[in-house]
Structures are given as C-alpha cells and as structure tokens.
C-alpha cells in the first residue's frame, strides 16, 4: 500500500504523508455562523508524531474531523481547502472512497471510549468489523487477528474477553480496545483526539506508553490532539498550537517549550503550575475569555487578550511566518526583542 516514490518531500528529507492546505470549516447554526477553522495548513511527515495543542473550541478536533469528512453536514460545511494524502484530495473523495481511507489507512481514537464503543456488540465484533469490511477476512482469520490485536494493546488473556461487552471494561481498558480497533488494518496515520483526557493520571501514563511503543514498533505516523502540554512534551516531535481556528505557532517540540514565541503559547506555558520545583511564582494567567467564533476577527484573534497587542494587531491578522528554521509563529510583535517584527 505504501508509496514507493514519495510525491512530496518535506524539509527534513522524510516524505510528506499528509498535506493540509488552507482548510476552512464553518458551522451554520441558528445562533449564527461559527468560524471553527479559518485557513489551516500543515504538513505531516511519514513516521513523525505531531502534537496539536489548544483549548476547547480552538478548532483542533474540527480540523482533523474535516480531513476525514467526519463533521455533520449540515450544520458543518468545509468551505475550502485541500488535504492531500496518497496523491488524492481527501476533501474531494466520494462517501465510498473516503470510507476506504477511514479506519483502514487513517484511523482515529476519541476522548470518550464509553460513547465511541457500541454497548450492545461484543468486543470481538467491534474489532473484527473493519477487518471483515476493509481486509475481507473471514470469521476465523478475523478472530485470530482480534486476539493478536488485543494482546498487542495489553489486554491479558485476550481469548477470554472476546465475548465481553464494553461495560465490563474499565475506562483504560476500553481505550485499549479503541486502540485495537484503530490499529486493526495497519493504518499509516493514527489520529488520537484527546484519548487520555477522561482517564486518571496513572491510566493515562499506561495509554501514552502503549501508543509510544506501538508507534515505534509499527512505524506509525501519529497526530495527537490534546489540551495537555505535558502529554505533548512526552510524546510529540513537532507541535502545532491552535487558537480561534488558526494555527498560531508551530515548532519542533523542544524548540517550542524552550523558546515559545507567540504570546498565547507563552501565556499558556506560564499559566501552568510546576510539578518539579519548590518555588512558587504567581501564575501568569491569560486575561479575558476564550474567543467567541461567531464573528471572524478583523485583526489578530488573540489581540483582545494579548498584553503585547499594539495598533497593527487590531486590524491586520498576522500570517504564520518562519522565525528561524521550522519554527513559525503568527504574531506582529517580537516578544524577545521587545519591538514589532519586520514583516
């Protein structure tokens, strides 16, 4: 299935697996038009783990759901953009074509394993479904693969659990089942949408560990969507920070944490209390409220909460520009130099 000749090559020499260009998604609700995603572009290199960070309503989930055509239409609408994968634009595929991609080549795991599993079907049926559908396995082959998958995700004595129902599993175990379903057809990309948010910290550690191990064993490409800057630091190689439907900063993981550039990223990192030091600084909270997306902002969407905002920010939305290497930020102000950026 894999491309022998990469059609696109990213900066680090690895082939680009997914290229999203200028994605715009809106929701037409009775309250008005919600500008959920406002022109998002990014590349995903083969084998990398990309963290997508932002608070609720920043568009991180909608971006990924749009790419897989998983948003409800109506009220949602993908207004424009491309998502190039394997030479095809995912946003232009027919329902049947995208169904072939979903679950088999790009699969997704979600935040709440209780609502994403079907309560009236056995674990075996739910994992085997995609094997029978996409890989045309017969029942016996599917059963063997299901057992193999359950063992792979760390469910002991898998054979005994084949006929169990989701309610017999704990939250962490259900998330393991979700991962088994997602990995059933050896996908090239795993999209994890806040998969550990509903879990306790010791269970979260188990799941993060599991995904890390599977990623390395299976050479998988992972997109990990989260609001937790700690999980991203543990798992991701590159990070995208989103705010109000825009990517506002993008950098390799170490660079982002060592040298955050956008005032929102700086604020987000400053608002986290430290687990590892005794010193107790007052938290630098970001003032104001999260954005309301019913109106498209005229200037920078963060300007109203930004302590560095100046005149230009009010009427011109800064583009995402390189500030050195692969580190990009969308801000008119150079926080380090204390003066406006030349752009």
């Amino acid at each position, binding site marked *: 299935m894999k491309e022998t000749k990469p059609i696109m090559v990213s900066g680090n020499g690895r082939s680009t697996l997914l290229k999203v260009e200028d994605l715009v998604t809106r929701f037409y609700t009775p309250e008005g038009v919600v500008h959920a995603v406002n022109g998002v572009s990014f590349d995903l290199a083969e084998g990398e783990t990309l963290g997508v960070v932002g*608070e*609720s309503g920043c568009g991180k989930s909608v971006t990924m759901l749009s790419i897989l055509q998983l948003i409800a239409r109506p009220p949602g609408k993908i207004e424009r953009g491309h998502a190039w994968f394997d030479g095809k634009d995912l946003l232009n595929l027919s329902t049947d074509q995208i169904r072939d991609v979903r679950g088999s080549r790009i699969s997704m795991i979600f935040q709440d394993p209780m609502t994403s599993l079907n309560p009236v079907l056995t674990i075996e049926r739910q994992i085997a479904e995609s094997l029978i559908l996409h890989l045309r396995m017969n029942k016996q082959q599917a059963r063997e693969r299901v057992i193999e998958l359950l063992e792979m995700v760390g469910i002991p004595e898998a054979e005994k659990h084949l006929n169990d129902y989701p309610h017999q599993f*704990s939250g*962490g*175990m259900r998330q393991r089942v979700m991962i088994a379903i997602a990995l059933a057809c050896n996908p090239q990309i795993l999209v994890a949408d806040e998969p550990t948010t509903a879990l*306790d*910290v*010791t*269970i*979260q*550690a*188990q799941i*993060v*560990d599991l995904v890390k191990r599977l990623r390395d064993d299976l050479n998988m490409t992972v997109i990990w969507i989260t*609001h*937790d*800057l*700690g*999980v*991203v*630091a*543990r798992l991701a190689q590159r990070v995208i920070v989103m705010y109000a439907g825009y990517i506002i900063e993008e950098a390799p*993981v*170490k660079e982002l*944490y*060592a040298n955050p550039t956008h005032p929102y990223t700086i*604020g*987000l*990192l*400053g*608002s*986290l*209390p*430290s*687990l*590892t030091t*005794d010193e*107790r600084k*007052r*938290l*630098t*909270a*970001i*003032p104001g*409220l*999260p954005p309301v997306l019913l109106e498209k902002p005229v200037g920078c969407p963060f300007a109203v909460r930004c302590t560095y905002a100046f005149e230009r920010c009010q009427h011109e939305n800064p583009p995402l520009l390189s500030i050195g290497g692969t580190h990009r930020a969308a801000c008119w102000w150079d926080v380090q130099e204390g003066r406006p950026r030349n752009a």
Partner: protein
Amino acid sequence: MPENNVLLKVDHLVKHFPVYRGVFQRQVGAVHAVDDISFDVRHGETFGLVGESGCGKTTAGRTIIQLYKATAGHIYFDDVDLTKVKGGEMRHIRRRIQMIFQDPYASLNPRMSIADIVSEPMIIHGVARGKQAHERAAELLNIVQLNPGFANRFPHEFSGGQRQRIGIARALALNPELIICDEPISALDVSIQAQIINLLEDLQKQMGLTYLFIAHDLSVVRHISSRVAVMYLGIIAELASVKDLYNNPLHPYTQALLSAVPVPNPAIEEKRQRIILEGDVPSPVNPPSGCRFRTRCPLAKEICAELVPEWREVSPDHWVACHLV
C-alpha cells in the same frame, strides 16, 4: 480535642454507602468510600487532598460539611464535633464552612439571577435582606472580579470561568472561615484555570481564609497547598508538607502517581524515570485485604496482604501507611 491552631480535625472518619440488591432490597455490602482517615487542617493554610477518581476525596469533603452523615469517626470544627451537632446549631456552623463545587454548570440554579444566587445564603441565614443583600452581592461580585452590572443576568450568559467566580462569590457571602474547594478548576480551560487559582490565592491573603483543596491535578495541588494528603481507595496513603511530599515521597503509590504526571518540558520528560502501575484501581465494594494498594504495588510482599499497614509519623509531620517504609 483539637490542639492550638487547628481549625478542622478529621478523626478516624468512615463513610460507607450501603449496596442493596434483590426483590427485598437487602443490604448485600457497602461501598467503602472513606475508610478511616485522619488529618488536621490548620488556621489559614491550604490543605490539599489529592487522588484519582473514586479514591474518596470528594466523599470526604462532603462528609466533612455534613452533606453525608459519617458512618463512624469524628469531625471537629473549632472544637465542636460536627457528627454530633443537631439541625439548628449545624446551620450556625455552616455559615463558617462553605463549599465551591467542580461543575460550574450544574452548581448554579439556571432560573436565578446572579444577584439572587449570591444573596441567597445571606437571606437563608438572616444576615441581610432585600436591597442590603443585593448591595452586598454587588460588592462580592466586585471582589471576584466580575462586573457588578451583570448582577441581573442568568448563569447561561456566562462562561465556565465566570460561573466559577459566581460560585466563589456565593461561598464568600457569609464570611466563612473554611472553604472546601472540590475540584474547583478541573472543568475549566488551562488559561482560565490560572485566573481562578490566582483569585483563590488573593482571597486567602485578603480574608485569612482556610482552604481544604480537593483535586486530582498534582501540579495545581503543589502550587496552592501548604500540606498535602494523598488518598487511594478510601484511605490516606501519605500526608506531609508540600515540600516533603513532592521532594521525598515515601509511599510507593505517591511515587508512582508523581512519576505518572507528564511535565510540560520535553527536556525534563526525556530523562524522567517512570513507574507504570499495572491494572486498574480495585472496586471499593470489596477492597483488597491488608494494604489497599498491594494489588498494584510493584514492591508488594506477603505481609502487605495480611496486615493493614499502620498509619505512622516517620518524620515530623510526615505520615505514611506502608509496611515497607
């Protein structure tokens, strides 16, 4: 009886919830939500109570404020045993203990205006009425940094962070001494969490409040608390000053818990040693014999299944329940 400087003394507190089954609804067992916990909260401090979901931290908080009746044990608030206090007197004491809840969407009555929500405690307790109560409500909204002009609006018009401020204003209405904060920030976005933490810290400084801070986020608890107790499956595993607990955790559960929290710093994350606990927390209906943590403890020995570990002070003000310490 409480010593000097102790505002709240929890003494061998037990709370079981009966489990009924069958046609005749016979009691077949009990959820051991809180099983013999003891700690002191001192005047003006923030006492952190941490643990994972189902460990009993919320039940402990609710039993202390007498929303649940304790199964056994005592709760001394300023020398008065709350488990023995009757209706009228309890109402008097409630003025001095208030609570802030986790879910700012469920804990505010959607049919009441903000002014009415904040002044309700004053009216119930006969502290103020009518115009006077509303004036005080406006003052309280100011204190929690909300525009008093919003007083006539309803909860749905506010964001999560603003609602939590309203909940805090309501808790302050009676000038309490102790506020039980039950996961006050876990429903909020990261950037808003810091605002509420800062507000709680400011209020404590201004009004000399004492907090019992119940949370699952270990970083937040480290930031805000002076002393911390770690709960697991209904018991306290370890209790110490914030410095001792985080720098020198003794109980294997505390060690595992601290190592499991991801740190927002990739340079540190790379080097950190992680203790991954196997399996899930056992059911509180049928907790393990001996030490409750032994089923997941990487160091468990035979004795851990046989004997309940003693709750002892291993160094001044550092308590731990483990056979191996």
